[in-house]
Structures are given as C-alpha cells and as structure tokens.
C-alpha cells in the first residue's frame, strides 16, 4: 500500500532523518515514535511532500509519489495535525467539505458525507454543522479536524500528534472513539506520537526513531519482548507494565474461553489480535445489541460475555504477581 526506501532528509549539515524504510499493508497502522527531534514528524511530512526528501523514495500503490502532482497526491491522503488548523472563517460543515469541494463533488453528496461523518464522530449535525471552530471545545475541534481529513475518503491518513493538544481525559475518549471508527478500520494510517502508550494502543506496527534513525520497526509486543537494542529496551522499560497490559490480546486468553455460547443472543465477532482492553470496551459499547462476543483463532471459535472477559483480564493481571 505505502512503502518507503532509504528516506533521508538533511537540513544543512544536520541529518534529521536517515535511511528510513518501511512497508505498510492496507488497514495497518504505523506509529512513529521517539524523543523530541528524532525525525518522526519530518518522516511523516515526506510522505505527503510537505517536506521534500534529500534522498530515498516513497511509493503509494507502487507509484513513486515524486512523479505525481503534489496537490492530487495530498487529496488522496487525509492529514490531521496537533494544532488542528481548522479554517477559522469556515463553519464546521464547510471545513469538512473543503477537499470534496476541491474535488468537485456535487453539493448533495458533500452534504450527505458531512452529515454522516459528524454523526460517526459523535457530533450532532444540527447543533454543530453551522458553528465556527472558535465556538467548539478542543476535543470537538479535533473531531472536526479528523472529519475533514476523512471527508474525501482517502485510502491513507497521516496524523501528526493528532491528540497532542488535548487534555488527558478528552484524549483518552477521542482516541477510543477514533479507533472504533468504521471509516478508519480499512485505512492505512501513519501517525506520529510521543506517547508510547498511544503508539502501543493504536499501532499495528511501531517504529521507534532516535536521532533520525530507526531503532526498531515491529509489532508493539515485539518491542517489549525482544527489544532490538538498549535504546529500545530503555524506552519501553518505564512503562512496560502499562504497555504489556495494552498489548495483551484476545488470543492470549483464548484457551480460557468457553467453546459454547454461555447464553443465547447475537454474538459480536471480534478479531483474536484485538487487545483485550479494546475488546472489553467494544463489547461494553455494543451491550444493547450483542449480549456476548465471539472470536475465531486457528479454526476454532470461542464465546465470551463481558463479565467473563473482565475476569480473564483480572487473571492476566494476577499472573504478573506470580
């Protein structure tokens, strides 16, 4: 889907990013993480050519992006930044409609799309569509920012510290809503964050950078279990417990789950690689429709209820004590 090879950027004598290469499949999320000045934002901005690479290439669907008209390229990539950058002179609806309008969508289609996105992001269309950004809270602004990035249905979304400007509570909330967005599941997402918990929670791949160089590029649990070097080990050590908690997946407790539905009803199917915490969250949210959930791993299907999952999670915590 998106692939980089030897991506390098120099500012004068200073090399901000050195030889970054990765490849992402459709639907994957890459979290770029590292200390300040490690080159993560620079890397991200080279993907939509806000910054021109000094060396290296980016391919999207096999096409070298340096050969594409830059404006078209960017319209196929959603872009969300920390400071939101909503247009203060446009209403919420107009902000969301910017790219579809540039792409020449019909008015009715734009309107339907805007309404649907607002609804998905939990903003009531009637109440918010005609408001101006300065009338919104930070969290609401960030939702609008995300809606604007998704409006034209880009296959790729780039996010630069998308939740960085929010207070911790709002941040948690938005992040959850965000991960639950139907829209986003199929997107290929590259996000920059300095919050390692966020990276582990959201990334299917984590890329840890230091001084412009990739330290390790792997699924989150690999960074915990087999850090590539001392820097990685130190970086994850401080929050190892929380990270482990977040990286515990449904399949890790698969053997503890009953083979037969413990009660009748419509089961919510969940992926076995879904982190346990998220599985609990999703099931809690879907309680009205789905009294229980199910997952399939290595050809076997297992069922669970919310109390059962929470029990399993507790056991998981208990295992640390032993």
């Amino acid at each position, binding site marked *: 889907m998106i692939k980089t090879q030897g991506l390098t950027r120099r500012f004068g004598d200073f090399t901000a990013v050195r030889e970054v290469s990765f490849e992402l499949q459709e639907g994957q999320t890459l979290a770029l993480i590292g200390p300040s000045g490690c080159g993560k934002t620079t890397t991200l901005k080279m993907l939509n050519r806000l910054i021109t690479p000094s060396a290296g290439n980016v391919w999207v669907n096999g096409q070298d992006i340096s050969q594409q008209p830059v404006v078209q390229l960017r319209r196929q990539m959603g872009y969300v930044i920390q400071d939101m950058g909503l247009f203060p002179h446009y209403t919420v609806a107009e902000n969301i409609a910017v*790219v579809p309008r540039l792409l020449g969508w019909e008015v009715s289609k734009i309107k339907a799309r805007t309404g649907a996105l607002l609804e998905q992001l939990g903003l009531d269309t009637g109440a918010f569509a005609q408001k101006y950004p300065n009338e919104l809270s930070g969290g609401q602004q960030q939702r609008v920012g995300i809606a604007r990035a998704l409006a034209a249905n880009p296959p790729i979304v*780039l996010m630069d510290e998308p939740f960085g400007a929010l207070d911790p509570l709002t941040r948690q909330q938005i992040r959850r809503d965000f991960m639950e967005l139907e829209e986003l599941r199929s997107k290929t997402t590259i996000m920059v964050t300095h919050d390692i918990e966020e990276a582990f929670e959201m990334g299917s791949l984590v890329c840890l950078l230091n001084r412009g160089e990739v330290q390790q590029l792997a699924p989150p649990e690999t960074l915990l279990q087999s850090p590539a070097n001392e820097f990685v080990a130190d970086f994850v050590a401080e929050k190892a417990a929380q990270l482990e908690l977040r990286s515990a997946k449904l399949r890790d407790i698969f053997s503890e789950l009953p083979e037969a539905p413990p009660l009748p009803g419509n089961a919510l199917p969940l992926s076995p690689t879904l982190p346990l915490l998220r599985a609990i969250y999703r099931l809690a949210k879907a309680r009205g429709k789905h009294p229980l959930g199910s997952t399939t791993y290595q050809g076997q299907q297992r069922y669970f209820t919310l109390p059962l999952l929470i029990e399993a999670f507790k056991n998981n915590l208990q295992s640390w004590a032993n």
Partner: protein
Amino acid sequence: MGELITFFSDNQEKVMEQVLEHIGLTFISLLLAAVIAIPAGIFITRRPRLSGGVLAFTGILQTIPSIALLGFLIPILGIGLKPAIFALFLYALLPILRNTYTGISEVDAAVKEAALGIGLSKGQLLRQVELPLALPVIFAGLRTATVINVGVATLAAYIGAGGLGEFIFGGIALNNATMILAGALPAALLAIIFDQLLALLQNTNARKLSKAGKPLLLIIPLLSSAYFWPQAYAPGWSAGFPPEFMGRPDGYQKVVDTYGVDFTTTILNNALMYKAVYESEVDVISGYATDGRVEAFRLRQLEDDRHAFPPYYCAPIVQKKLAEENKKLTETLNLLAGRINDSVMTVLNHRVDFDKISPEQVARDFLKAEGLWRADQKQGGETLIIGSKIFTEQYILVELFSQLINGYTDYDVDTRPGLGGTKICFDALRNGEIDLYPEYTGTGLQVLLNPPQDTLERIITQPDAVYQYVSREFEAQYGLKWLAPLGFNNTYALMMREAQAESMDIKSISDLIRQQ
C-alpha cells in the same frame, strides 16, 4: 458659525465641486495604491528577504514632507491632477503594504500547514485561506490610507488639482477664518465619515467582508470618478487663479460681476500659474501687470475695457508724523515720483526673476541710469525700517527706497522685505514696527478701507480720484501718509498666451467673453 453658513450657501456650487474633487483625489490615489500595494504585500510574504527593504523604502516615502514631495514632482509630472494623485498614491502605499504583509504573515501557521496538507494549491491557499483571514487587517490599512489621503489631499490645491485645500489656502492668503473653516470642516467630516464607514466594514466578520468586497470594488472607482463630475458640465474658459484673487472682492468676483463671464477656475499657487498657462494647462490667468513673467512666458495682457479692476498705482506709505518731521525723507522718496512706468517696472521684475540678478543690484543699476545714485552717507544715524510684501516687485522697491535714503539722508536703513500679505504690512506700519512700505492705491481702497458702494463706483475708474481718496482717508483714519506715486499701475490683469490671443483676435476681456 452664522458666517460659515452664509459662506456655504453663497458658495454652494463651489463647495460641492471641491468636496467631489476631494473625494475623487482621495479615492483615485487609494485605488492605485491598493492595486499596487496589495499584490506587493502578498509578494513580500513569499519573499521574506525582500520584505525589510520594501517596507523600509515605503516608510521613507512616508516621511517626505508633503509640500516638498509636490515640489519634486512638478518638473516630472507638471501641475494638476497627475502630481497630486502620484503624491497621494505614495502616501497611501505604506499603510496598505504593511497591513497586507502583516495580515498575511499573521495567519496561523497551523492553518496554512493544514490547508497545504489536505491538498490546497498555493493559489487556493491564498484566495481561500490567507486573504479572507487577512482581510480585516488589510482593511485597517485601507482605512488608515484613506484618512491620510483625505488630509494630504488638501495640498492638491497648491498644484492646481483642486479639492478643499482651495478654501483652506485661499482663507490663509486672505486671512479669512470663515473660508479656512469652509475647507477644513468638510475635509475633517470626510475623514471621519470614511473612517467610520470603513470601520463598520472592518468589524464585520471576514465572510461578510468578502461579500462586501465586491460592491466595494465598484464603489471605489465610482468615488474616484467624483473628481471628474464637476468638470463634466463646467462651462467657459479654463482659468488658473491664485487663492487671493479668488477671494478678494476686487478679484475674480469683480470680473464676474462686471463682464458676466463664467470661467472654469483652477486654484493655482501664485508661482505656478504662469507656467501653467504657458504649458496650456489653463488658458487664462490673473497676473500682475508689471510681472516679469508676462514677458518671459510670452503672455498677452487683456485690456480691462470695462474697468473691473481698480487702479493699483504704487506709492510708499509712511507714518504721518515721521513724514512731517522729516521733510528730507519725504523729498528723497519723492525723487522717484513718476519715474517708473509699467514697462520699466516689468523690465526690473524680469531682471530679478529671469536674469537672476539680485534686487539690490537691479535697484542700483536703475538709480545710476536715472542719475539718482549716491554713495552711502555717514553711518550711525537713526534707524529707519522699510518693510515689504512677499513678491519680487516689492523686494526691488525696498532696495530702491533703501539706497536712496542711505545716499541722501543720515538714516541707517534696516530692510524687512517679504513680511507677508497686505494685512501684515499694514498692521506692522500702524504699530510702528516698520516705518514705511510700498502700497498700491487699489489695495488701500478695497482691502484696507472698503468704502461704501456708491463712493466706490464713483471713483473706481479714475486713478487720480482713487489716489486722492486713499490719501485723505488714510490720514484721517490711520494717521498714515501716502507719498507721491512712482508711476506704474500694477493692476490685476487677465492674461493668455500671446499666440492663442493672436489667433483668436482677443485684445480685451470683452473679446474674451465674445469668444466663449
């Protein structure tokens, strides 16, 4: 206040015309400045390295004193509309340029990054994001420029571009506070009105402002064209008159009353009107009969066949007491009586104005030629102060008087030429700050004495009767004595280009009216 209202109702047309001209001048230049400064302001946000230099340069333009700027422009752009607009244009540049630059630079960097990041092109970023967001600041710049221009546009009257400055400078020349106010008050009102209107626009939000922008694009050119409305239906010869002539009862008004003529008048600075008629900017000017420039610019004086202008025979006037106590002084000054006729005076003026010979030298040459010159008597006598008004002829006369008195009497002469207008010299003489100055009978009659209408009509066409009248009245009313007239009659005279007058066979003002 009552006087002001009377003035307005008496001069309705003129006031309207000046207000329209003023609005026109303000907005033509504003429009030009906006057309240049807004794109330039945008350009320097894209080339930050240039911004310092460009802003500093326009800042320097702003500091040039307005009169000096107009002076620089005359050799390049002549007189009239062009230099006035150019000067106003230069003054309007800085506020618009600076505010455009600031407004666009201050658009939130995050907004710009997001705009580019989601795929706006640079042009779309400018049109859809930067300009709308910078608009209130740009508007503030336009507002500042408008107020500056309304103020500076008064100076356009110096170079014949009209506007409310005509009343202001006319009022100053005639020491007429009502007239000054008649110009200053509407100018101040215009400044306040435009400022408030633009403030209203500026305070509406950017969205409404972008909508208002379009009608505004129409309104500004419309206001600009206001300058030309008065001209569109203006009748008659085009004439350039200095403020004093326009305002004096024996000036323009007298010509209109006597001949029933209608000119399209342009107010021109005294020093500029000869050049203006010479270069066909106007066809008629009001010169002085003995002015050296009549020769230099090849002008024809039109005969005042219906005696609109009173005689202006020149004679020294002195304190009566001084004249009676010093017969020697009186006798000395009377040596010049009748010796200088119109053409002699014109030549003397020409030598100073065009041959650039000092008044002192010209006076000595003349006295020598007349056999009147004597070397300076002994020093150390009583001091006698001679004053004069502020034009060439008076400077020469002061020198003539001074050299004669030095040569023939024990006085030590102190000269104070160029004191200012009639009123200043007259007051200085009455207060004893000066002892004598050259005055003209017509001025004494109409400006200083202002006799009843019937008396005026009875004597006005007879030079001797006027002289008798002013002599008698000055002695009685002010204790001042008119000495013997020098001989020339420096009356107001309408003049036009010799070639044009010749081809149209115009010799007198009556001929001029017939050709209208």
